[in-house]
């Protein structure tokens, strides 16, 4: 089978990319989704808070997904469900997509362009290094979310959550509402990994304690979890002896972060940024493999689906431009440097001759800053200075650069993003 454009993943990223590509004139496209329904992770996110930016109303995950699914249907975009992409390879200018499903078995699709939209998955327990047995009752928060919200089953009655990522916070509320007792949320870092609004609505509203700089050091129980031992940690995240505290529970939820799902990106040889776990991309959201684009959580973990949709539409339009030969020949790329407190930027480089009127640059900071500023500099010159009352790793930041600003930087090879704080001087 041959296709102009193959989109891997039918979550919000894949759907928005497909819609934008089709609207930009790509007729011969196909969305591949391994699940039995479109919508990705949104199907299990039944809480509200989606779409505030895009639709100016607070939708639940399934409602937000439905808007894009209906649009994709109205545009007659072909989607193959229950179809898993198992390999991706480059052959000359073409891409070979190997897929598998029950009806058709294993086969190959030859594509001129590919959009990676596989989302992310939760960090598994193995990565956490908690000693002790492996009793039943330990779940990642996302798995618990699936049980409760899609299958309608409760994983347990007395719960401790390790990690304060958004899924953990949302599940603390969800299980409380369903009648469980959530004893506490322990977070290794001195700050939460989740959005502030989720701390207010999910923990404070229900008087669930958030223990910062704490971790689980032991799990009790052989067959089933009977309790955990938590302890305070020092600046180096090492448990402090003598601070241990036993907490009885039958369930431990792990919410220790998400990692972009990039096995396929790696199999086609795309370079991965260790800071995001996702591909390095340029201003067109194209990876270092020509004609291979990436968007959504596979590129970097987003907290807001609105930004996923926006970014993915851009990837879809760029893939269309690429197929139509309109993604102009490469000029000189300016690299974006993440320095002083900034962990990464997406994109990682900008070719001014290919960018639009404006370019949104998204990034995360490495720790919590108060009364600080974001600065974009080139040589010694400040291009942007944005004051911020609070910056936190849990909240993605963005800066919009204008083409005119970048045309003025002369021969510079890079621009630098950094956090400026008064405190550093003291």
């Amino acid at each position, binding site marked *: 089978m041959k296709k102009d454009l193959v989109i891997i993943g039918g979550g919000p990223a894949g759907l928005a990319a497909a819609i934008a590509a089709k609207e930009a004139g790509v007729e011969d496209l196909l969305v591949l989704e391994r699940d039995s329904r479109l919508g990705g992770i949104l199907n299990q996110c*039944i809480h509200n*808070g989606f779409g505030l930016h895009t639709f100016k109303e607070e939708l639940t995950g*399934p409602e937000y997904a439905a808007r894009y699914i209906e649009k994709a249907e109205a545009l007659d975009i072909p989607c193959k469900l229950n179809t898993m992409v198992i390999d991706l390879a480059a052959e000359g200018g073409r891409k070979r997509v190997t897929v598998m499903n029950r009806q058709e078995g294993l086969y190959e699709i030859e594509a001129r362009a590919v959009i990676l939209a596989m989302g992310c998955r939760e960090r598994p327990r193995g990565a956490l290094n908690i000693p002790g047995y492996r009793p039943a009752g330990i779940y990642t928060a996302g798995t618990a979310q699936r049980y409760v919200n899609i*299958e*309608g089953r409760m994983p347990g009655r007395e719960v401790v959550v390790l990690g304060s990522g958004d899924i953990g916070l949302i599940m603390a509320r969800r299980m409380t*509402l369903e009648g469980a007792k959530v004893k506490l949320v322990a977070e290794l870092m001195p700050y939460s990994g989740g959005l*502030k609004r989720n701390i207010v*609505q999910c923990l404070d509203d229900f008087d669930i304690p958030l223990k910062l700089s704490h971790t689980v050091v032991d799990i009790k129980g052989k067959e089933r979890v009977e309790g955990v031992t938590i302890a305070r940690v020092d600046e180096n995240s090492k448990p402090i002896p003598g601070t241990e505290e036993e907490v009885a529970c039958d369930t431990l939820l792990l919410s220790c972060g998400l990692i972009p799902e990039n096995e396929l990106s790696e199999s086609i040889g795309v370079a991965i940024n260790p800071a995001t776990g996702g591909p390095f991309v340029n201003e067109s959201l194209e990876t270092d493999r020509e004609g291979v684009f990436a968007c959504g959580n596979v590129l970097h973990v987003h907290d807001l689906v609105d930004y996923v949709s926006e970014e993915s539409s851009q990837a879809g339009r760029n893939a269309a431009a690429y197929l139509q030969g309109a993604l102009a020949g490469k000029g000189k790329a300016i690299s974006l440097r993440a320095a002083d407190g900034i962990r990464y930027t997406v994109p990682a480089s900008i070719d001014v001759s290919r960018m639009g009127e404006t370019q949104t640059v998204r990034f995360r900071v490495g720790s919590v800053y108060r009364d600080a500023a974001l600065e974009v500099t080139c040589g010694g010159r400040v291009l942007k200075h944005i004051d911020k009352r609070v910056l936190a790793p849990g909240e993605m930041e963005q800066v919009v650069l204008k083409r005119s600003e970048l045309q003025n930087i002369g021969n510079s090879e890079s621009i630098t993003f950094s956090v400026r704080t008064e405190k550093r001087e003291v």
Partner: protein
Amino acid sequence: MSGRREFVCIRCPLGCNITVETENGGIKSITGNTCPRGADYVTKEMTDPRRTVTSLVRVRGGELPVVSVKTAGDIPKDKIADCIRALKGIELSAPVRIGDPVAENVCGTGVDIVAAANVGQA
């Protein structure tokens, strides 16, 4: 009597830190909000805190056993538990479409519960 309370606005993901100075039980000043919605939020939060509630109800004959539902508007925070309890007994029949009515005037709040996902027939 004067006092001071700290809030995090939840009206949008920016999550502004808002400080309210009070005097004799009334609000004297509100600072830290980036937009007027923040002032509205803290005023309500001090007098009549409300939340949108989402949960699940059972579905008979559907491709999935449950469907997510939500309050069509926000309800008083202290009614959340009652509202969840009221949903326990409800069972819908597939197909269910987004916006389908699930319960009227839940717990006397004047707010209806509506379906928030599509569940087709099995």
